[in-house]
């Protein structure tokens, strides 16, 4: 008999396919786990809708539950329940330590160019706020490129959604 805690632990071992320094649990995409005898149901709230890694995440969770000897059922939630505010504090620190600036907290209104161009974004390497926007889209749609004028280092900034 698998316990809910065992499933959480197993999912916390799965790295994000695009940014493997954080796990799927750190990323906040697991909204709930329900264990019913040998069946394990996972509520999966996708990150960006256009994210090419969603299927990889879904399959990795199913494999990990099978490895515990249970039958997985991954329910993809078609709602607006994920935002970057769901990334855990531990996840944000792992991002920063790896050179990815974690997303700022979500505001009430949609982001504006003025906000993105402001120097409210901190460099993950030296901590300076003297950073500028280079491009809204980076290597993946969920990241922007910024440049730190203080330590002269380009870095990737997670978008806030």
């Amino acid at each position, binding site marked *: 008999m698998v316990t809910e805690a065992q499933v959480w632990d197993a999912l916390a071992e799965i790295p994000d396919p695009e940014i493997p320094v954080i796990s799927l649990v750190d990323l906040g995409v697991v909204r709930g786990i329900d264990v019913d005898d040998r069946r394990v149901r996972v509520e999966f709230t996708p990150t960006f809708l256009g994210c090419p890694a969603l299927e990889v995440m879904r399959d990795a969770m199913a494999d990990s539950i099978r490895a515990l000897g249970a039958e997985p059922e991954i329910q993809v939630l078609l709602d607006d329940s994920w935002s970057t505010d769901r990334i855990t504090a531990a996840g944000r620190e792992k991002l920063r330590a790896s050179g990815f600036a974690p997303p700022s907290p979500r505001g009430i209104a949609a982001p504006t160019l003025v906000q993105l161009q402001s120097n409210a974004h901190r460099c993950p390497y030296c901590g300076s706020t003297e950073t500028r926007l280079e491009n809204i889209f980076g290597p993946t*749609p969920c990241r922007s490129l910024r440049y730190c004028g203080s330590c002269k280092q380009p870095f990737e900034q997670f978008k806030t959604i």
Partner: protein
Amino acid sequence: MKQSEDPEIAGLATKIDREEAYHRIHAQMWFDRLRDEPRFVEALERLRPQAEALLDSAQRGEHTAELADLWEEMTMVRRSQPAGTKW
């Protein structure tokens, strides 16, 4: 669509709109950079009927003649894939 009675449509539309904010800003930045570039202005004029066809269709609930060309273009990638291709 965000006001849809279908919770899935409303939820997804809300999510898409939040992501779209970045695409709109990105498009605006490119527009501002290229607005005086003759090739850009020429291409914009050439494509304007298609953009208008899309908006007109959405507003009036019926299709204009230009929609056929637009539909051809928008579905090209999907149609070029063998049936059952998964992304």
